[in-house]
């Protein structure tokens, strides 16, 4: 069980693909001007990533290592094409709002990166968990930034107008860069602080234990 906890925490926080590893930046910057499209992109990547992780880890013993990258690319491209057909048929609104970035999921570094770093070394179940964790990490990060950018840049949330006040710049690529950069900084700062607090606490506990042991002796 501990293994899955580590996979989940890594995907969501310590190895968060958006904030810690800064992967998949193109769709992030291109779509966070709208909360709806950024969340849609996150969920699409979540599905494609999970499926590709499962397929690749199932095939990891069959595919010779010399041609593994072309094989992965074909598998991912197939899944993306499928996702595109699915969205065009059943969710045309999302399909329109994602635009060109839908096809570019193929070259999203997160998917190929997880295939290379995790799925071709681990079993099907772990890979599926890893795909879901990383996909969720990506989705949550994109949605947070999408909400910030849309709320401040357009005065709306998920398309519903909330206030008149807006900073138009935050809905342009320039604002996307700014918000993304600041979000990374805040995220890293919080994680660093948390780690330091945990270390200090652990040291204190160890020292108390030592003192107690001495007194007892």
């Amino acid at each position, binding site marked *: 069980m501990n293994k899955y906890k580590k996979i989940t925490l890594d995907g969501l926080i310590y190895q968060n693909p958006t904030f810690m590893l800064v992967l998949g930046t193109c769709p992030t910057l291109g779509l966070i001007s709208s909360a709806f499209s950024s969340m849609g992109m996150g969920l699409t990547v979540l599905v494609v990533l999970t499926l590709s992780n499962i397929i690749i880890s199932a095939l990891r013993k*069959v*595919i*010779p290592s*010399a*041609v593994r990258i*072309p*094989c992965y690319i*074909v*598998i991912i*491209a*197939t899944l993306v*094409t*499928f996702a595109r*057909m*699915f969205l*065009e*048929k059943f969710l*045309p609104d999302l399909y329109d709002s994602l635009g060109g970035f839908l096809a570019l999921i193929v070259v999203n570094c997160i998917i190929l990166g997880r295939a290379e770093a995790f799925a071709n070394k681990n079993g099907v179940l772990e890979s599926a968990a890893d795909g879901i964790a990383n996909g969720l990490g990506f989705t949550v990060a994109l949605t947070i930034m999408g909400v910030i950018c849309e709320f401040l840049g357009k005065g709306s949330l998920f398309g519903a107008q909330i206030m008149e006040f807006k900073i138009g710049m935050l809905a342009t690529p320039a604002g996307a860069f700014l918000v993304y950069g600041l979000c990374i900084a805040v995220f890293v700062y919080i994680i660093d602080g948390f780690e330091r607090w945990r270390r200090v606490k652990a040291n204190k506990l160890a020292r108390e234990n030592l003192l107690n042991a001495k007194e007892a002796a």
Partner: protein
Amino acid sequence: MTVKQFFKSTAFKCIITLTCVLLVSGIFLTIMNGLLAVSDAERFERAINKIYGKSVKTETVAVANYNDNATIDEAYRVKDDGNYLIKSTGKGGYDNGTVTCWIVVNVSGGAVKGIDKVVIESNKGQSYIDRVSDKALNQFTELYTDGIIYTQDLITNATVKGTKTAICNAVNGALDFVNALLGNVTEDIYAEFDFVEYIETKLTSHEVNEDGSITFHIVTKGLKEPSGFKVDITINADGVVTDYTVTENGSTSNTYVGQMHAGILDGTLFEGKDFAGIEAILDNGISLPSDNSGTEISTGATHSNYLCLYAAAFATKNYDKLIVDDGGNEGGGETDEGGTENE
């Protein structure tokens, strides 16, 4: 390497694996494409639903053209409420480009009642089209008064007027088409008049006053920089301008309004003159010299001045046609109405 060795080598295994993966992917996607492909009919239905906001049934209407400024691409009658959905391409955009719009024309009782919605579908060469917001397009529902949309009333952020003109042309084309379809073609009474080159004949109107004078409410077209002017001109029975007011100035900005000829702005240049007097303002008759210079109206806003001069020429030259043709009838009609009011 013998053949046998090759079949056992890694290279062979690689080729087989890659081919298999490609084949499986191709077959999978072909099947999925068969299942999930969005047909043209579905795409069309989706486009209509997006415009309408609800799903409706339509029937195709044969396309014909009644307006030179627009091409009707597709036309549909909505079975549910009798409205018409027209896809129309307006000409006269920036750099001779075009704008294609979907237009929902509200029809009830066999007559056009208004415009429900305008949605831009595509354009050619209109780089500022993004600045035409939905808010601007919604104005069409309010702008519809008498069967034609007047370009200048549409407020957009597209500083290039061409884009605006093309959209209005598309909408007017759709209106003309639906009117013709319903058999409600209004006769253009000014079409055969002189000097209609710069006059929006469908928007212009006149009334015959009790003393025999005629008041024109003239709307001009745009000419290069300025867009259309609205001018009220009253001509007395002798063909002399007695009253002249610019009700709406089409100049690009207040700077150009300031540069217009003062006598044209307040009418002192025209008042008291008949057609010969108006014609004499320019030495060469009533056409603008190609170099725009050397005449009284050559100020910083020559084209604005010229549009007003043209409106005055239109009014003074044509007033007698109205008196001869329908002066009696219309005058009688107005007196009758007046009579009823008195009683």
